[in-house]
């Protein structure tokens, strides 16, 4: 047994220690995360739109973009906020959650304004936010943010209007009814001859992708429309359906779709693929694996390009398609909020459609913004805001 006096001293020391522990905070001693000073939804953000084109300087004597339509979409919750910039080129927003926001800003230039600027009455000129597509708005981040805007003339004449990839409900693992639909957004006849549809390469197992390649799309599945120049016109406002197999899939899967009236069919002639002889076939340029044209059921990316198949550049086991030739590109993901895992360059598609699971019969369709005279579909080069989910596919038409 130890000396009793020593124990008294020892115990007094311990007692003092425990009082100290209690009087200071345990949290302080153990160095836990401090309580944040900023509270969610309390901050008012101010976004200033600045013009790089010089148009605003000519019109109003400063570079602030007034009367621009701004859409902020929360990446996590999906709510959208529509705002218009004031005469100082500023929008203010308060009470929103901290999140990454997909921002689309458009300032259409009127013919009167263009006449002042350039002496012409062009009507297809607009200012858009090409450089800043995603804003992190958090209570802990700066509250004053500048967004630069650049001039864009026109838009893509032919765009991807719908992608159906997941497969139908209630028919097991049936997946042969996939399709992609393209649409003539312009006000003039366009031609699909030799236009390219390519699946953007990614390897989900290794995580390999080429999102940050500065110049090229990488692809291992490249198909082109048939024709020699003006054989396959697409009228303004016309939808063209390209089916994996152009048959009435309802024979095999009751909840599927009838694609027997498709405009084109992907037929892989070196594999036991289905061929509907009544439907023109897409031409396979390069696809080494699989028995059919096959896009990812939940995750993938497609591009539409006018690049010549003869000019494709080989790279490893892929071919390269220059960004400058891309008419349209759409990425879709099982979890479209995970934009950090994008596979398509943000310059082509800043966001992601999707959020559809396998075999649910759902489809992704571009949002209709105008139906006066002809349909105008949303094309902000950002699938997070351009596309919506529809509960059943609508091949060859708007739902």
């Amino acid at each position, binding site marked *: *047994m*130890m000396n*009793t006096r020593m*124990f008294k001293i*020892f*115990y007094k020391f*311990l*007692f003092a220690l*425990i*009082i100290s*522990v*209690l009087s200071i*905070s*345990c*949290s302080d001693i*153990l160095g*836990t*995360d401090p*309580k*944040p*000073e*900023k*509270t*969610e*939804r*309390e901050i008012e953000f101010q976004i200033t739109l600045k013009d790089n084109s010089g148009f605003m300087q000519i019109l109003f004597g400063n570079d602030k973009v007034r009367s621009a339509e701004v859409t902020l979409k929360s990446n*996590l*919750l999906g709510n959208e906020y529509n705002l218009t910039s004031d005469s100082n080129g500023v929008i203010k927003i308060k*009470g929103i*959650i*901290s*999140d990454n926001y997909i921002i689309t800003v458009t300032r259409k230039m009127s013919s009167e304004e263009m006449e002042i600027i350039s002496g012409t009455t062009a009507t297809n000129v607009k200012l858009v936010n090409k450089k800043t597509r995603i804003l*992190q708005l*958090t*209570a*802990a*981040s700066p509250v004053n943010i500048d967004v630069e805007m650049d001039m864009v003339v026109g838009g893509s004449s032919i765009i991807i209007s719908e992608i159906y990839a997941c497969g139908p*409900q*209630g*028919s*097991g*693992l049936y997946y042969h009814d996939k399709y992609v639909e393209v649409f003539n957004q312009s006000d003039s006849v366009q031609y699909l001859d030799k236009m390219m549809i390519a699946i953007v390469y990614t390897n989900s197992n290794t995580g390999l992708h080429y999102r940050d390649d500065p110049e090229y799309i990488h692809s291992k599945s490249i198909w082109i429309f048939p024709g020699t120049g003006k054989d396959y016109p697409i009228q303004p406002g016309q939808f063209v359906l390209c089916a994996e197999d152009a048959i009435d899939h309802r024979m095999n899967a009751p909840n599927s779709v009838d694609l027997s009236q498709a405009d084109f069919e992907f037929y892989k002639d070196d594999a036991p693929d289905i061929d509907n002889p009544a439907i023109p076939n897409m031409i396979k340029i390069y696809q080494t694996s699989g028995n059919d044209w096959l896009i990812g059921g939940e995750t993938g990316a497609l591009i539409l390009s006018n690049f010549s198949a003869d000019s494709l550049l080989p790279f490893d086991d892929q071919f390269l398609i220059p960004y400058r030739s891309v008419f349209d590109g759409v990425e879709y993901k*099982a*979890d479209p*909020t995970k934009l950090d895992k994008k596979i398509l360059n943000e310059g082509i598609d800043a966001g992601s459609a999707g*959020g*559809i*699971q*396998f*075999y*649910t019969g759902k489809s992704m369709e571009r949002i209709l913004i105008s139906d006066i005279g002809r349909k105008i579909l949303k094309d902000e080069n950002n699938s997070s805001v351009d596309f919506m989910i529809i509960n059943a596919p609508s091949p060859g038409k708007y739902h």
Partner: protein
Amino acid sequence: MMLSKENILRLRDSNKYCSFKICFLMLFLFSLGNNTFSQDYKEFETGFVTIFNQGFNLDSYYFGNNPAYLNFSLDDEFLSLKNVTKNSEGEFKKFYTPRTDQTFGFFASGKKSIDSIQKFKGSFGFSKLVRKNWDWFFTRDYDTDNPFLIGDSTSCNSRINGILINAQYAITISEKLSAGVNLDYIVDEGLKTVSPRPTSEHRDIHGKLGMGYSINKELSLGFTLDVTDKNEQISYREDEGSLTQETIILKFKGYDFPNVLRKKVETRYSYINGYASGITFAYNNSDDFKLAGFINSGFEKNNIKDDALDPKGVGFWKDDYLEVGLKSSKQFSKNIITGLSYRYLKRNGWAKYPPTDVLYYERNLYSHSLIAGYEQIINRDISAGLEAGISVFSKKEDDHYSVVNSSIQFNQYFGKIGINYHWSEDVSSLLSYAVSARANHKYELNYNEKGSIYFVNARIYDLIYLETAFLQHSFSLTSEVNIWNSDMVLFHLNYSTINPFSSDAFKNTRRSEFDFIIEYRVKVI
């Protein structure tokens, strides 16, 4: 005077007709947390807090959870086999509470002196939690106010099976100084029984170090240090049953606006660490008056991460707490015993979203609970008792993320009567009835009028439940049968019914609770 083994046995013999021991405080609704591990299955239930216990629980081991005082426990050495069944069901509940909540447990424990200065107590148990008609949620410890909860769009049954191991060791270092440690280890696995069939795994470790020092023969002081480490993993996988069916995963960060994800695969990790320290004390001037108390302060933090391949922080929850307890027993005469118990609990919690380091949620609560008891020994075979108490409770929540703010203050009144009867030398029974009522003083609820259906149709009931006044009736029966002069069988039955009376939201609803515990004890010579 410090009780010796001989004194303990003499005391027990002299009061044999009233040999029930007290259960740990069950009345106090809000004493959640870190100090319940080893106490859960330690003592047998009577339902009374301050009486019908002969003051056996009035030391720093039972009231303060200081393992150093295992040496001075009044327990006999015995081996115990115990079966616990609990069932709670009904529609008077929070939204995130299962409609039916069942607990089944089987525990074996034993206590033995290693030598004259060392003692050991260990237990091993199996437990099964069955949660029927549980809407959405799948987090085991969902009721901690941590706003980061994960679930899916299904309502169904879940079960969690696990094993629990407890070891306690105490040593008398000197005549006045003792030390002890307590270790709890729990592992369990959960499964939701319908597609998408998420699974969960938990591993909980809780260690406690205690020291005790006898200042004089009447007063002893001690301190405790607690460390808790828990892991939880909830996994959603591509279940065959969900292959052709849509899975909707809900990730809550507050009462409203969950992230709604149509995906089949997700993994959530929760890493929970807790630290606490405390002071215990006990005063015992004679067999007539005993007093014990504790002050315990600590915190628990929970780091929540999602994604199996690349885990990223999606939530951080921290809860600071302070507990104070004081309990006394006074024997005025040979036939009159009184008891008094007071408890104070304060909890301040907050949550942030790590990617943005912004405060999402704050919750402050406190409760005071006071119970007084009076026991009259009528004759050698009969004793009667009365307990009455009041709890004062206050809770304030600010859910900045969901724009939901609430505050509530209420009193809960409690009364309980019981009679203990000795049928023979070896058989006795305690029958009791209790009534408890909640009355609200102040209630405020403000929320975003543009709230989503997840709040307006569902989680708002988590808040309305709290503000709903109710009346609870409880009936319990506890019996003890001594067999073969060495063994003992004890059982406890309790039935409660809770009926709300101040809310349209819970009109014509009720909740009932049924507990049954049976224990077989074998004395170790």
